[in-house]
């Protein structure tokens, strides 16, 4: 009996040792790429952050680890921690991460000057190349930053450049919408109208452009057309651009339509 318990104890000890060794191996010694993928997959979970810490210790010059670890912090409003990591990624590989940092400053922090600094620095590092930070044309983003700064002359320059960069057929329709909004802000209603109409040529579902046109027609006293575009904006409202994380600078709301409609029907 004694021998049985001794064997049982040995088996149990062996199993527990194997269990511990496997976990330690997976956390510390398994291939770094696998651990990176695993940690990325579990974004925001404490285990993921701990695995990134281990990876940073073992591979301190790997920019991707800092970048990936920053993501949940920034998404959840912990910008100090998130940007410390992102800054490190930029320091290690500026061409790779400046665009994303600029994008984050623009969309998550509304720090327009900071975003422009990053976009401009990236641009100088990549001559004769049109950068697309986080998948968006760099001049569309620069235009957006100037729009946020209410510097409409400059925002117009960059939105036009974005259309040149990408070509009219491929550019983000929002470049036309923002052009319209910028021209509207400085009182060039005719030009604004042309840009909004261009956006609708590209897609009749562009609710932002319908609201822009409704405003212009209202200002010009053409209430019938204003109402038509308000009705159409309402009809296509579900096609409006939407970001689950943040409000766009040109985000439209049903309340905008309701407020304008009240003025139109007065």
């Amino acid at each position, binding site marked *: 009996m004694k021998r049985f318990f001794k064997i049982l104890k040995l088996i149990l000890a062996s199993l527990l040792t194997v269990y511990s060794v496997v976990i330690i191996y997976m956390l510390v010694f398994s291939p770094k790429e696998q651990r990176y993928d695993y940690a990325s997959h579990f974004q*925001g979970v*404490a285990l993921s952050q701990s695995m990134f810490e281990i990876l940073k210790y073992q591979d301190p010059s790997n920019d991707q680890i800092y970048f990936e670890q920053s993501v949940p912090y920034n*998404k*959840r*409003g912990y910008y*100090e921690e998130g940007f410390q990591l992102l800054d490190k990624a930029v320091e290690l590989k500026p061409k790779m991460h400046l665009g994303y940092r600029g994008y984050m400053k623009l969309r998550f*922090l*509304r720090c327009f000057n900071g975003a422009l600094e990053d976009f401009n620095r990236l641009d100088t590092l990549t001559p004769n190349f049109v950068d697309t930070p986080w998948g968006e044309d760099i001049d569309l983003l620069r235009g957006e930053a100037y729009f946020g700064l209410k510097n409409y002359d400059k925002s117009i320059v960059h939105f036009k450049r974005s259309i040149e960069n990408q070509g009219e057929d491929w550019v983000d329709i929002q470049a036309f919408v923002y052009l319209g909004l910028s021209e509207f802000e400085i009182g060039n209603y005719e030009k604004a109208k042309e840009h909004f109409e261009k956006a609708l040529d590209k897609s009749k579902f562009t609710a932002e452009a319908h609201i822009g046109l409704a405003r212009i027609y209202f200002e010009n006293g053409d209430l019938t057309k204003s109402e038509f575009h308000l009705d159409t904006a309402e009809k296509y409202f579900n096609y409006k651009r939407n970001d*689950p994380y943040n*409000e766009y600078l040109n985000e439209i709301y049903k309340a905008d339509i309701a407020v304008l409609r009240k003025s139109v029907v007065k």
Partner: protein
Amino acid sequence: MISALVAVLITGWMYYQFSHTVGELSSNDEIDGDFKVCNEDIIPNYYGMGTDHDGGRKAIKNKLLNNLQNLKFDNSGLITFRFIVNCEGEIGRFRARSTDLNLEEIKIDSAKLKHIEEALLSLKNWNPAKNEHSSYDSYYVLNFKIRNNQIVDIF
């Protein structure tokens, strides 16, 4: 004995690592009052969950910005409030963090933070996170942008 101890320690550590996430806010009765969540174990983040104020962030800004103009600040930067919209559309468990333009932490007078928190509490009509089955608690993030010593934007 040692192998059992190591295994228990590792299991405990792994349990902690799997059950905690970046940005979770633990409750504190002293500062959270009688705010209750519906399920302490599952509180996702607002994005992708439909959590929002009626009329979106623009409505929040329209309602609060003017009333906060009397608050003056020393530094430019951001005050970021993270809080919970519970499954019944009530808000609470406010935690604020503030950063300057270099994204380094700055201290903001707690009375001013309390003032903002009270302004937030005046907002009704929150839409909790929901799907076809039920409504849920969720975390929400709201930024107050400071330039020229005052709040200039809320998003």
